[in-house]
């Protein structure tokens, strides 16, 4: 009996889908609706930051629709958000669903592993994917994938210049053992250990699926102690929110780790590190260790301030750093459709670089290289400060990619 009900359910589901898909589309008052796929993970490793990035894309779509309505344009953009859960397998399944729904441009996925996995699908089906945060250099290829964040090679150059400016030559890298953490650790090691820096790098890669980091922090402490003494030692933390906060909580109780300066990757500049839910002892530790890092973003400008104000008004919270990129990725997708004048992946792909060349967004000027990757990036340098009772990421300078130099504010 139950089996019969299930089979009937399957038939009804399939039949309904086929009916709706095959029926002639309505004219809905002459409105032309284009669909933007948003494949941004909001669970798994992105449970904390994913929703903030997703909202960046949503904000862009809402703003564009408002502008089109004000201009009395018949065009509207509709969004379809799918959760890729931060894994390649789910990213593929979700991308397939979007392709089946006829979507021609997708904002996302987030990680390099996900982007690498969906790239063949994007190419074969001629669907454009614009990733807000995939940064692995080995994905560079002239394909249907665009990346609006600078790849790890920029970050590693910025980092080594920053370390050098503070006289740091011995670095213990505590990094997530995933494509992001491994990418930065590899590049940092290769640059810092080579001339002209000739430094020393020790790596501690921790599992992204564990919740107990005591053994990893113990190893980190041993490695830092092995550097000897002196002001040329530092720890570089490449972490997300939950893992990073747990690691910092253990590190603050360790004598060796409390005696060196700390640096952080771009991912450490996320609101949760300093928000009210994070213990004060950890935030005090960050201030005491003068945690310093960088993020690929333009200097303050009216565009950035407008985005931040709109985001705050819409969602009641400040955007996380990569929300700026998802906002720009969605804007580029929509502007490219409008520029192409046709909802077709190949046409969108052909105009997207030109659209980027003339677009200055919340995360900067979106110029792409021959691989559809962000061609250039300056990095803002920040450190953690305490002003009265307020902890903040305070910007203190800029690293310029063109000259590989730092200018302090």
């Amino acid at each position: 009996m139950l089996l019969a009900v299930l089979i009937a359910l399957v038939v009804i589901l399939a039949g309904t889908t086929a009916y709706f898909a095959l029926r002639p589309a309505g004219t809905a008052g002459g409105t032309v609706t284009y669909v933007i796929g948003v494949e941004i993970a909001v669970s798994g490793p992105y449970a904390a930051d994913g929703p903030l990035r997703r909202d960046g894309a949503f904000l862009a779509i809402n703003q564009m629709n408002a502008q089109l309505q004000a201009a009395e344009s018949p065009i509207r953009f509709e969004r379809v958000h799918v959760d890729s859960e931060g894994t390649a397998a789910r990213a593929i399944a979700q991308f397939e669903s979007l392709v089946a729904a006829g979507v021609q441009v997708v904002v996302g996925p987030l990680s390099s592993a996900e982007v690498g996995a969906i790239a063949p699908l994007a190419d074969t089906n001629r669907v454009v994917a614009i990733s807000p945060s995939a940064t692995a250099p080995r994905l560079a290829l002239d394909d249907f994938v665009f990346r609006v964040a600078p790849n790890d090679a920029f970050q590693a150059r910025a980092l080594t210049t920053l370390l050098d400016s503070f006289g740091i030559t011995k670095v213990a890298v505590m990094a997530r053992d995933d494509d992001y953490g491994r990418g930065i650790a590899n590049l940092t090691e290769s640059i810092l250990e080579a001339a002209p820096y000739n430094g020393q790098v020790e790596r501690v890669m921790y599992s992204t699926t564990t919740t107990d980091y005591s053994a990893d922090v113990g190893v980190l402490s041993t490695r830092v102690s092995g550097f000897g003494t002196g002001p040329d030692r530092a720890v570089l933390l490449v972490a997300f929110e939950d893992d990073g906060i747990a690691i910092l909580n253990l590190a603050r109780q360790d004598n060796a780790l409390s005696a060196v300066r700390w640096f952080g990757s771009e991912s450490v500049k996320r609101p949760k590190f300093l928000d009210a839910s994070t213990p004060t002892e950890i935030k005090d530790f960050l201030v005491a260790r003068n945690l310093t890092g960088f993020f690929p973003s333009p200097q303050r400008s009216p565009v950035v301030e407008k985005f931040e104000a709109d985001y705050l008004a819409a969602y009641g919270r400040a955007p996380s750093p990569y929300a700026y990129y998802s906002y720009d990725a969605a804007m580029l997708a929509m502007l490219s459709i409008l520029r192409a004048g046709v909802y077709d992946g190949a046409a969108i792909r052909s105009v997207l670089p030109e659209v980027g060349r003339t677009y200055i967004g919340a995360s900067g000027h979106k110029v792409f290289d021959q691989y559809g990757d962000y061609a250039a990036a300056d990095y803002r340098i920040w450190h953690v400060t305490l002003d009265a009772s307020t902890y903040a990421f305070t910007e203190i300078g800029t690293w310029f990619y063109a000259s590989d130099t730092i200018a302090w504010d």
Partner: protein
Amino acid sequence: MNERAGSAPPEGETLADLLFLFTSIATIFGIYAILAISLNLEFGYAGQPNLGKVFFYSVGAYVAGILVAHVVSGLAGWSGELFGAPAARVRFEYAVANPGVIFGLFLAALVLGGLAGGAFGYLASFPALRLRGDFLAITLIAVGEVSRVFVHAYEPLAGGAIGILGVPNPFVWITSLGPDIPVTAQRLAYTGVVLGIAVVCLLYAERLSNAPFGRLLKAVRDDELVADVLGKRTRRVKGTVLVIGSAMAAVAGVLYAFHAQSIVAGDYIPQVTFLVLAMVLLGGAANHRGAVIGALVLTLVDRFTQPATLAIAGIFWSSPVDLNYLRYIGIGLMLILVLMFRPEGIIPERPVKTPRPAAPAAAAMDGGTETP
């Protein structure tokens, strides 16, 4: 199917999209059906909780990925980084130009993957002989996790965190046969192969389970001591079923690698095993058709509640509550309700079908009277 409103999409294009959706769902269903059948043999019939199922699945995927990456790159004369996007592009182009090579590699991967999975299953049978129940389950989970972390950390083996890119669909060359052949054709062909292999696995498992070996499996599951006392070689039985189940899982892994066209270590996590276990429990343990139904139900529920699939029906979710979160709650609730109100699953366990004895044997059983 471009403009959602304002003008009707060409019907042929919409049909192509629906076919694409079918291939996506049917291929994943076929792969999970094989996994569910394999776990059902081990767990449902023999009572061996192989919660390291994802490990054997990954063995097949890695065999396929490593084989294709090395052989095709070598044949194509590629000398750069083996697992990155440029190498993947070279392999795809080579596969399009050399159908025999990629299809031959696909067949070789199925054979080698199955053998490798079986070999690892044999190794896993050693702890299975000494451990029971929860201890065996935990040991096999640990084996899966250790291997995943190793592959993830050791980049030269399989590309580390980003994995192996560029494992072409064995039918990728189909579209080059003519300008009118749609991209979906290669996917349809591959889906057919996957479903075909799933049917073969189902028939094999049914035959195995209804043979005396099937009764022996159930005897081991229900009371191993009694089976031992009756002179049955229970250790060999447990080892054999693990070899068979692991080989099947590895074949599923090979099929997934060619479907996904990439292999990423982060995909082979314990949740995959638990999903397969949920399929077996939902469909009905110790019943292969139940396991297949469980795989079908969970695959369909997963895909037909996706926002992207709803968009095909013109439904665009714009509520402040993320539909993706509601899906997780709904699917979890469904599983709990099924287990509460129908713990035996959709198709409950049935007695082993004993084939009618051949004529002389039947006569003997009837007391020597001849049957007409």
